[in-house]
């Protein structure tokens, strides 16, 4: 288990946004988190990445420390499990969890290149940074064309690509994506989801928060459904797509 959230409760003042939420994410998966507005999806992501402090529960992070191949089997040795609760956001980023915030949140007055370099803030080696830039420009050729342009002048889709590219610069093991389809044209949404799948194929585990449930469940391996701060359903993504209740509530019949 790469990440497991156990009995997490988060409050904003007197309002409880998450009640005893538990989810698990395995290495290499795409996990979708769907639900209506105000269900607590963004709150959960922000708590995992350390931007919000929970009032209870735990978040354990257990990245594989080493992989050994023997007898055609891959054995993984796990490092020590860390509790992320109480850690600062910048410390959590260093552990390999990168958060693409909702609404893109690129640094509008900085250039595309500077935005990406800020994403590489945790890297030390020059070669790592250059490799990151190259990888990012490979995934998003449009960013390479616009690297000296101010991020605020990009289109919505390009900003979303920049936000994702920026998060990938730090070579995360787990990518937390908050509403990547928000406010984008259907064609761009399809393109973004294609890239999400591609990023996953390159070995990054993804936790995807989406209102566009259909799109999310199509790319995801597993899914969780949230309602008013609770997880009410969890299953394989394919099963959720067929689930009558989910269909009715989130997939438009």
């Amino acid at each position, binding site marked *: 288990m790469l990440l497991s959230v156990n009995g997490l409760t988060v409050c904003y003042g007197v309002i409880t946004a998450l009640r005893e939420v538990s989810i698990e994410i395995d290495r290499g998966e795409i996990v979708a988190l769907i639900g209506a507005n105000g269900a607590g999806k963004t709150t959960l992501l922000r708590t995992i990445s350390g931007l919000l402090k929970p009032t209870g529960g735990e978040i354990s992070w257990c990245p594989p420390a080493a992989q050994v191949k023997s007898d055609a089997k891959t054995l993984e040795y796990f490092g020590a499990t860390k509790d992320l609760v109480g850690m600062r956001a910048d410390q959590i980023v260093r552990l390999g969890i990168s958060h693409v915030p909702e609404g893109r949140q690129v*640094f509008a*007055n*900085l250039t595309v290149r*500077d935005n990406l370099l*800020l994403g590489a803030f*945790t890297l*030390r080696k020059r070669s790592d940074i250059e490799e990151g830039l190259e990888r990012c420009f490979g995934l998003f050729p449009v960013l390479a064309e616009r690297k*000296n342009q101010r991020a605020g002048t990009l289109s919505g889709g390009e900003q979303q690509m920049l936000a994702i590219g920026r998060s990938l610069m730090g070579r995360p093991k787990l990518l937390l994506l908050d509403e990547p389809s928000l406010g984008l044209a259907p064609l761009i949404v399809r393109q973004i989801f294609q890239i999400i799948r591609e990023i996953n194929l390159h070995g990054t585990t993804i936790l995807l928060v989406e209102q566009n449930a259909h799109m999310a469940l199509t790319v995801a391996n597993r899914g969780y459904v949230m309602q008013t701060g609770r997880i009410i359903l969890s299953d394989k993504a394919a099963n959720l797509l067929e689930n009558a209740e989910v269909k009715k509530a989130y997939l438009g019949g």
Partner: protein
Amino acid sequence: MDQAASATMLHRGEVPAWAVNLGVGIVIAALIPVSISFDKYIDNYVLDVLIRIGVAIILAVSLNLINGITGQFSLGHAGFMALGAYTGGVLLKHYQHQIHGALLPPVFIGVTILGGLVAAIAGLIVGIPTLRLRGDYLAIATLGFGEIITVVLNQIESIGKFEVGGSAGLHNIPHVTNFFWTYAWVVICVVVIARLVYSAKGKPFFAVREDEIAAAAMGIDTTYYKVAAFVIGAFFAGVAGVLSATLSGNLDPGDFNFVKSIVIVVMVVLGGSGSITGSVLAAILLTYLPEQLRAFEDWRLVIYALLLIVMMLVRPEGLLGNRELWWKRKTAMV
């Protein structure tokens, strides 16, 4: 971040560090003959205005690091200036008979740095708790800090054998500041802050201003950068305080109330938040302008205020916006 990583982020055409240091050295050395000839040939009033302009530049540029570049709205800059001014004023007055001749320059350098350090330590102590606050709340907290400093200075008559003056003020401080000391510090302040924020290490300051959540999500310790901006800004405010204390020779706690802080904020906003050269221009303009308006006597401050309103209406983003003078058509952060 290590050297290699910084090197990647050097942009084409960026000047290497040694060249900058050499340039700064040459400029400061060149200030010596200029200062000597100014002392001889320029009348005292003009010299006084020139030095006050220099002090204003240091105050505006250092506040710009906090307010404009890092985006933390501080109204306590006069408080930091007061701490520096009183540190310098009290010490120099107390020891004025022991220090003279060749001893004076090194002592004055030491006292100026000490004044800056006292302000910087205060910046650290005030910054760590208050920088959790944002926007209006931070402004009010820093305003409170500035007022506390004025009130405390009003109450203290002396500390041990050192005279502080209390509400009567501190007078007869030796006039040590001259054109050279002031502008040497102007050069240091502008170069240090410009090099800091336009280097690889400086990008996080802009990132914190642009979007704190996104910056934290990038692994930037936002509190660290906010406190760093606060401490460095406070240091230079303290230095400016020492310079102004030894210019007039008189200190009054009332000189450092919130009106003074607001005057500095006005300079930053008018020059363009985030533009270092903008702050320099605005500091020059807003110190020179009231002098020119003396001809209007009673109407001076009314005209001054009207000019500010007109300037904000015509150019709400400030004189230079967030661009710098010396970068053609590029934004300040590029």
